[in-house]
């Protein structure tokens, strides 16, 4: 019985080894840094041309969209990257609302070519993948927007 299973076990080990290799190599090659606007700006030179993902709050007044050329530019402002910090400040909704109207926060200009996403608007949280070009403009390859929280913030705060 032992002998019959040897082949099988060898096969299984090979499969596992292949999967581990696949995971390890993909993790190394596909990892993207997830940064805040501030982190990216303070190390601009280091990240030019590198694939990064960034989170910030959309500034509604800065949105410029040309439907002819599909050029979309807008600014995002700094929001904290740490979950606990956001929680302490009163939750994501509060952080977004404050950050969108605080001129003192670091900002970065985003350029994206493509259809304007449905959820792109003031105080939305943008999660943007792309890279920084030489002029300090972030060239986005992917935009992800979240903004159900704005409406929550119009409701009263939870006491307790």
């Amino acid at each position, binding site marked *: 019985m032992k002998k019959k299973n040897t082949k099988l076990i060898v096969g299984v080990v090979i499969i596992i080894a292949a999967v581990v290799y696949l*995971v390890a190599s993909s993790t190394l090659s596909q*990892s993207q*840094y997830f940064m805040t606007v501030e982190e990216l700006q303070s190390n601009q030179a280091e990240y030019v041309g590198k694939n990064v993902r960034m989170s910030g709050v959309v500034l509604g007044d800065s949105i410029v969209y040309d439907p002819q050329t599909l050029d979309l530019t807008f600014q995002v402002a700094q929001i904290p990257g740490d979950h606990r910090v956001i929680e302490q400040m009163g939750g994501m909704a509060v952080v977004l609302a404050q950050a969108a109207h605080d001129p003192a926060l670091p900002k970065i200009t985003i350029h994206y070519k493509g*259809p304007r996403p449905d959820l792109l608007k003031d105080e939305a949280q943008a999660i943007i993948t792309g890279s920084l070009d030489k002029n300090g403009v972030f060239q986005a390859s992917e935009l992800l927007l979240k*903004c159900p929280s704005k409406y929550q913030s119009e409701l009263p705060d*939870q006491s307790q």
Partner: protein
Amino acid sequence: MFFAGLIPSYLALLAFLVAMVLTILALLRKQSALPTLASHLAKSAFILQTIGVISLVVMLVLEDYTNYYVASVVNPAMPGILKITALWGGQAGSLFFWSWLVSLIVFIALSGKRKLIDAWSFLVLAANVSFFLGLSLFGDNPFVRIWALSDGSLVSSLFAPEVGAVVHKLGIGMGLNPLLRHPGMIIHPPMLYVGYALFFVPFAVGISTLIQKQNDNRLIHDTRTWVVLGWVFLTGGIVLGSWWSYDVLGWGGYWAWDPVETASLLPWLTATALLHSFLLERKRGIFKRFNFVLVLLTYLLVVFSIFVTRSGLVNSVHAFSESTISIPLMVFMCLWLVTSIGMLVWRWKALGGEFEINSPFSREAFFLYSNIILLALTAVCLWGLIFPLINGAVTGNQIVLDRGYYDRTTTPLFLLLVFLLAVCPLIGWNVVQLKRIGKKLWIPLGLSLLTVLILFLTGLRQAMALGGIFLVALGLFTLLTLTIRDGISVGLPKFWGFLWRQRNRYGAWLVHAGILLIALGIVGMETLSTNIQGTMLPQEKMPLMGYAVEFVSVSETYDNPEYMTAAAETILYKDGKEIARLSPAQHIYPERGQFISIPAVDSTLGRDVYLLLVGYDVNVPYITLRMSINPLVNFMWLGGIFLVLGGLCVATTSSHEHAEEELKQEEPLEI
């Protein structure tokens, strides 16, 4: 309504806790049967919870804007059905609804004729219901009201936050997020939740079996139907979610490897492996340990998936944004993880069944390979979700693994799985002679090569697409020829009855055909889909792959109180002939400052022509339009239906009655 909802909910929690105490007392007296009183208490608790849920629904429908949750998900303009489904449209409501569903499953398990739930498994189930109900009531209570304080400010709280505060009724609610107002999104969460909850029963029985060291086949005999049904619901939920994102998110994508999507796939993968190893243990008595590991793992991954969705720790479009309940959920999950590992280690020796596989080309061996690949996929996806968390905790750098990672790691594994699935029915149980496979392989192989040849001659040149279609065709033709062969040997008059009696086997084949069709859809979307985007003036045409779309007009209408509709009139041509008039639109919600795209789709089984209104101006007028041609995509939804139907066929067989009979009947067909 506030008290009618809140009080029964607290009483339900109390009833579950008392039932647990009674059960523990019984266990201390060495009685392993469930005390009748505990069972009655749990059933009554479910009735009480139902009253709570109904109260919340009534508040939603009657638009009781003194309730915080109601005010956040309902508004007067929403149709009645959406007001009901708003029950699971936000965090607090959906958590409450989820705890009710778990309770419902416990109620059904307790009401069955067979004594499925003993004291130990009841304890596990009751602990789960109590936890989730407690989490809902104390972590994120859906009955929280809005109060006006004496200084005029508003706060939300269950009871008066200070002396003199009065309940305040808001004039209007916020309404459900427009993206969630789609039939797919309305049914998707309950289906997923029911699927999740069904896996709780096998887990409870598994833990009970381990504790009591019962070395019979109780786990399979008693819980197979639960696992199959759980799988069916989970599958349905995932496919609906995918259809929703194809239809609503506006970019024609069906799967984005978003953390929440990925998390819901995890228990599906292990449950799929479990179904196979159940079958193998039933037929051959091997894989007993594997079964236990998978039952426990599936439950843990369900809890993990709930954690990912609700904790807000993972960045995802689907996740409920912020959450006070992540710590209790994490602790709960870790407790069960430790318990499960402990139980397995403790009983590992006792679980040992024979593990003998005669030939690396037997069906047993193929089941083993499939399960290893399914587990490898689980590990790969789990890694993708938790590596960023671990890395963040260790190095302080936040990194993400997105599509690129999943595409690279899962594609080869999925391809391998589809290959195994395609050839598996050709391979017999136990020992196999390769010659025999060759004989059976002939027809399907020939037919699928012919298919690919025809496609090649008609102009399809992408190697990946041809390869994918070949694999799928091989699998489908194999299933088809084997079914026809069975039909010939049984004789047509008796064939339908035969199919029904053997629905365990043909149901599984239907499921496999469904997976192959989904694979076909994915091949179409990933290798053959093309799109073009452009801005057009009236009468202008935009061509793509033999099709062309002509812009006629664009208009704005205000017939809905909540949104303005911008709709473009377009004509779709194929080879110069008009085939459809399509009207891609946007719904613009001025008060939300949000718009959602309503794509217009011309669908045939072979392809979708998918039009998306990207931008417009009624004064000039012009539109910016995105046109995609998505070949084969509809096979994905058809495959989804196959999965659910096939799963239901399997679920209606009981493992007791059919196992023996089927063994006798199936063997002669393996020629």
